[in-house]
């Protein structure tokens, strides 16, 4: 679907996605391949502590790419787990 650049976006939509339920052993290549398919990635922060394992922040360059990724990857089955993808508030 063509993304209209002048489409009004709800306020909670932003370029930082908070992802939960990732496999603990996920690699940079896997994250960049999965999320990078939706657009340029500015930065990824992956949880490496006991209380952050399996979570990540994925920052996109473009807000429409972030929305597209959030819509398509929420509930996506990756490695046998369903991803939770939320807009970072």
């Amino acid at each position, binding site marked *: 679907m063509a993304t209209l650049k002048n489409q009004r976006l709800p306020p909670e939509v932003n370029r930082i996605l908070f992802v939960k339920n990732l496999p603990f052993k996920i690699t940079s290549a896997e994250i*960049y391949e999965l999320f990078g398919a939706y*657009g340029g990635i*500015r930065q990824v922060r*992956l949880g490496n502590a006991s209380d*952050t394992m399996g979570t990540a*922040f994925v920052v996109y360059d473009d*807000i429409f790419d972030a929305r597209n990724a959030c819509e398509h990857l929420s509930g996506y089955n990756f490695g046998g787990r369903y991803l939770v993808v939320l807009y970072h508030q």
Partner: protein
Amino acid sequence: SAGSSSVALKIEREIDDRNRPWTEEELNAQLPSDGYEILAPPAGYVPI
């Protein structure tokens, strides 16, 4: 863009503002650093 109504222009300006590139400091201000590591992109990663 020529011919856009003022509303479209206003929205476009808002989008541009929400798409303004972030500096490292701005990212650090918004994202946790303890408990998280910044992943190095895989070799040869080219943003589409």
